């Protein structure tokens, strides 16, 4: 082994300032968070809600959150894994599913605050830019979109979720620039293209293309769709039904299974001092037995 000079001395570690925990984990953008949370001081304790949309590999999380010193409080949440209750079995992380999740969250929040009668939002999804009109008794529910760490490109799924929430009746300041179907050169939103994306038209087109050109790839890529019996032409109908089901009953469904009495342990239990000492003795004994050392050595080690 070559002789390498130690790069990080003791003084390096003594002087090292760690970043915030969530920054070290790479999960929170504090620059954005400060600006989202900062409430006018002359509004005192009025909560400032942010509409948080996060994507995992197989799920979408949409939440309305307000911040306090003790911790953030979630007012309402909606997940893409709830969409099977409303009739959507496959494609739970695409643009259309994001739209459905946003719509579900919006209707849930409005129902919780008893504003769902007054603010129906945009019932027929047309892809056009829609902003909520103020109603008679109360002002619309206002939230700010929190995208997290994703790159906000035109046509990103977070904006699908944003459109879902807007059509659901929430007041979220936005611009149509990043919706799918916005033309950079013409600087206008093509509502038809956006409508296609909301109803999974892009997925249907790809399905048709693969069915004609590469049937084997179609079998592997869309295996879940085939198993669920979803045809490319029926996608739009499915999404229309899902939207209607969401508007009919957005309340969350409690799951039937009860909590297991004893929770499964995911990390190792911390040993006591005696247990650790005992383990060390056992390990040394095993080592000595394996090496075949003489009895004197093993007696000393056991002490």
């Amino acid at each position, binding site marked *: 082994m070559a002789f390498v000079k130690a790069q990080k001395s003791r003084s390096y570690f003594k*002087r*090292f*300032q760690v*970043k*915030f925990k969530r*920054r070290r984990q790479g999960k929170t953008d*504090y*620059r954005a*968070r*400060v600006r989202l*949370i*900062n*409430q*006018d*001081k*002359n509004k*005192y*304790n009025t909560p400032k809600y942010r509409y948080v949309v996060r994507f995992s590999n197989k799920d979408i999380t949409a939440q309305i959150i307000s*911040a*306090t*010193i003790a911790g953030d409080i979630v007012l309402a949440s909606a997940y893409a894994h709830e969409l099977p209750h409303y009739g959507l079995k496959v494609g739970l992380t695409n643009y259309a599913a994001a739209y459905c999740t946003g719509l579900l969250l919006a209707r849930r929040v409005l129902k919780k605050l008893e504003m769902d009668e007054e603010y129906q939002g945009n019932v027929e999804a047309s892809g056009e830019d829609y902003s909520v009109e103020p109603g008679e008794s109360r002002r619309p529910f206002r939230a700010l979109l929190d995208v997290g760490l994703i790159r906000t490109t035109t046509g990103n799924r977070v904006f699908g979720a944003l459109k879902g929430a807007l059509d659901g009746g929430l007041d979220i300041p936005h611009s149509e620039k990043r919706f799918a179907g916005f033309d950079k050169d013409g600087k206008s939103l093509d509502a038809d293209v956006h409508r296609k994306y909301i109803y999974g038209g892009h997925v249907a087109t790809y399905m048709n293309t693969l069915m004609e050109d590469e049937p084997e790839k179609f079998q592997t890529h869309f295996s879940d769709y085939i198993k669920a019996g979803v045809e490319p032409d029926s996608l739009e109908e499915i999404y229309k039904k899902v939207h209607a089901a969401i508007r009919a009953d957005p309340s969350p469904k409690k799951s039937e299974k009860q909590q297991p009495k004893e929770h499964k342990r995911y990390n190792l239990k911390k040993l006591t001092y005696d247990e650790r000492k005992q383990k060390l003795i056992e390990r040394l004994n095993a080592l000595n037995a394996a090496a075949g050392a003489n009895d004197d050595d093993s007696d000393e080690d056991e002490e």
Partner: protein
Amino acid sequence: MPAGHGLRSRTRDLFARGFRKKGTIHLSTYLRTYHVGDYVDIKVNGAVHKGMPHKFYHGRTGQVWNVTKRAIGVEMNKQVGNRIIKKRIHVRIEHVMPSRCNEELKQRIKKNDQLKAEAKAKGVVISTKRQPLGPKPGFMVEGTTLETVTPIPYDVVNDLKGGY
């Protein structure tokens, strides 16, 4: 060239961030609320350049007289010449923290109100005034023996042991 007397002169160490406390400001600074009449301490945060008070006010405590969108109006005393003036400044919230100077008072008020309500319910008259510590009570000294110390006559031979 002579040293200047600018607004932030001689603040190299005063406005410096602490050791291993540089970088992002923790969010509770922005989440606190202040009401008119609260006591606040002024502690300048060198990372935020807007709404900084003058270095004189660093370490002062005053009451809030105004609340705006991102700043607080604080009123405190300053000695100017031979008198003390009340000064009103506006400071951004990053440079302000709630003062604990009257925390003990507020706790005592709450406790006294509770005691008075209990006493009223029972019909007992109590005094909630604080009493100063009086002289310490007397006590008997325990576990001692008496040793009488008397002078002994000077013995030349034994005392000159070393240096004779």
